[in-house]
């Protein structure tokens, strides 16, 4: 489902992020409102600290037990599903997506796949990934003779 994917450090990926930022709430609504195959759901924000990379996604209405998070190499996969309404539901308006989703996010920094923690609070998923030892900043002690 991921199809073409631009790495975030790739100029096109950056352009896309910038365009989405400029579009503001329009772009925010698009992923869930359409929920079409191939759409990038969920949208993510990624930031870093010295030792960790954080990935956050908004997945309202998804339960912990319906989420699956995988890290393979630099690829973080977020999979899940949101329960669908019964067939006979009478909708006056239907903007919220339902069903299964899956997204692969190429992480911009090497991580240690054994040190990943995820939490889900009020529809906000936060994944904390420890940076690989090689890319962590290291303090070099100057020895006194």
């Amino acid at each position, binding site marked *: 489902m991921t199809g073409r994917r631009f790495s975030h450090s790739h100029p096109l990926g950056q352009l896309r992020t910038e365009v989405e930022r400029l579009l503001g709430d329009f772009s925010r609504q698009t992923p869930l409102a359409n929920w079409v195959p191939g759409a990038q759901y969920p949208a993510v924000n990624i930031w870093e600290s010295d030792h960790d990379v954080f990935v956050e996604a908004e997945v309202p*209405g998804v339960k912990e037990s319906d989420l699956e998070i995988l890290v393979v190499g630099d690829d973080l996969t977020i999979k899940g599903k949101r329960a669908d309404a019964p067939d006979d539901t009478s909708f006056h308006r239907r903007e919220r997506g339902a069903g299964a989703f899956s997204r692969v996010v190429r992480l911009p920094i090497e991580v240690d796949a054994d040190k990943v923690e995820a939490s889900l609070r009020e529809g906000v998923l936060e994944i904390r990934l420890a940076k690989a030892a090689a890319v962590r900043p290291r303090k070099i002690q100057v020895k006194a003779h």
Partner: protein
Amino acid sequence: MATETTHETKPGVEPGAAEQTRSGNWYRPNVDIIEKQDELLILADMPGLGVDLIDIRFEDGTLTIHGRVPPRQADGVRYLAREYGLGDFYRTFRVSEEIDASRISAEYRHGVLTLHMPKAEAAKPRTITVKAS
């Protein structure tokens, strides 16, 4: 669908647009409006809130939902990718008199706000039994 009892007030011209949050952004939550036998349900995707951060008002036939989304990252954090922004959720709906406004109730779970809007007695479907004399 024949009698749509909720509709939005002037799409795109939210009265709250002038009421800006600290970050200056606000978002229109995606909603489902479902009709049941004795109530209308509004489900709104409003992640990252708590019950004390949601204001629901009903005034002059207009239902307003407002979620005050607190910041989740410290100012000046180093973003590597930013695909969505954060800001308050805001949306208004026009509600007809067929709703019993005094009995509107709400709950918030998994980042979804559910509003129960009971139909007024007069709007409920009723089966009339014909009595044999």
